């Protein structure tokens, strides 16, 4: 068990314990290397649930094939959902590293580990690209049109570039995860006195290595940030918007990026909660982390509404038939229930939870809001992607001719949804089993820069700011 250190509280301030770095390292390595039967059981359960997804996918491929886009809406939904939750999680820690926020330290590895999920989402995107026609003579961002004489100017659009965009996001995310993990792998293997191939004996912890690692994290972080935005832009436009004639929404890629940031942050908060609850990390993940994370979460909820309203007011105001039909399709028509659930759970409910500072300052408040957001995120993607994939009109038309009826999920869709939701949980559990789930070097660095000192008649926490 992790040893508890006595905290001295002043009249006005109660500070969480500041553990010496060496004590943290030995405590955590002891925890990491001991057997965890609960974790193994959870791993088995979620691996089975994840395999349901694979089974559902295979059933779908062999029963309906890849001819009709209408049958694949829920696959597109779950792919977008995975992008918007686990896929965008690394971005959170990149942003926090950039602003040098101390509270990122316990959650850094959690966020980076979710980049492993993007491998599966990349494969799903490749599958969905088969359903997407070439961009010639239809409205896309690649402008391959006889009308302006540019057909063939950019070959293999959109397939090649969507694949490259998403692959770059996947590779940069994994590279970021590995670069951050290197020092800890060496530490774990030294602790276990192991000589496995992954021991990475090239890492010795010299000053030059640390400098290069720091520069590498910055560079990979910047690259992931840019590739994430580009990947989401391409995914949302080429695999959703451009499949609906008459849907021209410039804010849509930015809106999808924002929901990704919201979903990623919610995913990390929930993971933090479960790690603290079931991993016994009360000493390293405490109320201040949830409080600090709740503020950007509240901001993303407000921004969700802002981006949604910015699109809605433009479509609603002009009363143009094309735009009224679009509003019917994606909001108030066959998928209105999904839209209302998404609206409630991505904005109203988390807003009402997080607006209270007393709730933000609890361990349970932000995770509760995060749970609602993740559910809301799924329904928001459902109303966008299933509706877009349900449209049967010729893509060269200026607007949709009929609003298709609601498509409900069949058995294979349900299995895929179950598998898709279980996949990030399985990936996180596997990551916890195999690798240190808290970034040891980053935590030790932070603990070295933190102390509690007496100031006049009170006690304050002092945080070092080396840069």
């Amino acid at each position: 068990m992790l040893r508890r250190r006595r905290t001295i509280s002043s009249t006005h301030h109660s500070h969480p314990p500041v553990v010496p770095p060496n004590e943290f390292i030995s405590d955590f390595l002891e925890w990491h290397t001991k057997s965890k039967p609960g974790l193994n059981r959870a791993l088995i359960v979620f691996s089975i649930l994840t395999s349901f997804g694979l089974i559902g996918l295979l059933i779908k491929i062999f029963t309906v094939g890849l001819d009709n886009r209408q049958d694949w809406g829920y696959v597109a939904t779950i792919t977008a959902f995975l992008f918007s939750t686990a896929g965008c999680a690394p971005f959170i820690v990149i942003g926090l590293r950039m602003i040098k926020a101390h509270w990122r330290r316990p959650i850094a590895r959690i966020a980076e580990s979710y980049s492993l999920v993007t491998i599966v989402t990349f494969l799903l995107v490749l599958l969905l690209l088969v359903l997407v026609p070439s961009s010639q003579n239809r409205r896309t961002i690649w402008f391959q049109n006889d009308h302006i004489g540019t057909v063939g100017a950019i070959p293999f659009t959109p397939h090649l570039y969507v694949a490259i965009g998403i692959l770059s996001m996947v590779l940069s995310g994994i590279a970021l995860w590995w670069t951050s993990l290197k020092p800890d792998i060496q530490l774990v293997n030294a602790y276990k006195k192991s000589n496995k191939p992954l021991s990475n004996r090239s890492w010795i912890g010299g000053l030059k290595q640390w400098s290069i690692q720091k520069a590498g994290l910055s560079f990979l972080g910047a690259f992931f940030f840019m590739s994430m935005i580009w990947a989401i832009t391409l995914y949302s436009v080429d695999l959703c918007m451009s499949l609906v004639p008459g849907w021209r929404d410039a804010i849509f890629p930015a809106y999808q990026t924002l929901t990704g940031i919201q979903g990623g942050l919610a995913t990390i908060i929930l993971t933090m909660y479960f790690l603290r609850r079931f991993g016994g990390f009360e000493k390293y993940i405490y109320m201040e982390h949830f409080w600090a994370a709740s503020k950007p979460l509240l901001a993303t909820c407000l921004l969700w509404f802002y981006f949604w309203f910015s699109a809605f007011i433009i479509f609603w105001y002009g009363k143009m038939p094309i735009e009224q039909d679009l509003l019917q399709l994606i909001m108030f028509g066959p998928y209105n229930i999904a839209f209302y659930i998404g609206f409630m759970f991505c904005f109203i409910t988390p807003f009402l939870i997080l607006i209270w500072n007393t709730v933000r300052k609890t361990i349970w408040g932000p995770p509760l809001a995060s749970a609602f957001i993740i559910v809301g995120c799924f329904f928001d993607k459902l109303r966008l992607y299933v509706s877009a994939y349900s449209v049967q009109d010729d893509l060269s038309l200026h607007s949709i001719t009929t609003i298709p009826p609601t498509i409900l999920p069949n058995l294979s869709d349900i299995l895929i949804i179950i598998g898709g939701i279980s996949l990030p949980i399985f990936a996180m559990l596997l990551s916890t089993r195999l690798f240190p789930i808290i970034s040891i070097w980053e935590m030790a660095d932070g603990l070295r820069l933190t102390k509690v000192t007496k100031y006049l008649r009170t006690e304050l926490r002092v945080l070092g700011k080396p840069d």
Partner: protein
Amino acid sequence: MAQLLALYKTAESAAQSTEALEGAGITNEEFDILTDSPYPEGAFGEKEPQHKLYVFPFMGACIGFTLAMIETIGTQTAYPLVTGGKPIFSMPAMTIIAYELTMLGAIIATVIGIFFESRIPNPFAGIYDERITEGYIGITVVCDDSKLDSLETLLKSNGAEDIIIEKQS
């Protein structure tokens, strides 16, 4: 009754003095600190200020929202004119006006609350010295006339540069 103001050049001596005052039986409800910049809460052992500032923005928001509803619903009912095919009660447009007036109400009420809770304006707030804004730290104590001499001695022995006394009639 009298008010006493002791001026200190350093925060350390002021903190030492408040400790001495507590040792002499003066509670932290009976002394106050005057500074020219905010110090961390509890640095001088002072009483933690309690306030209900958070009530004000909610009240203001409710008033603002009500005014917005009166404006939007009232004006459109009084002069109904369909423009651009939009309904008389257009929720998106009403949302924008309601949002702005709600925030305005909240902001104005917050400022009123700040003045109220800070107890300003108050030209007769109590004993003061201009050296406070030069960086001196002031400790004010309200006490009986009989305790003045002992307090004065106590505070001077703990580093007070100057003591100002105002007797209240």
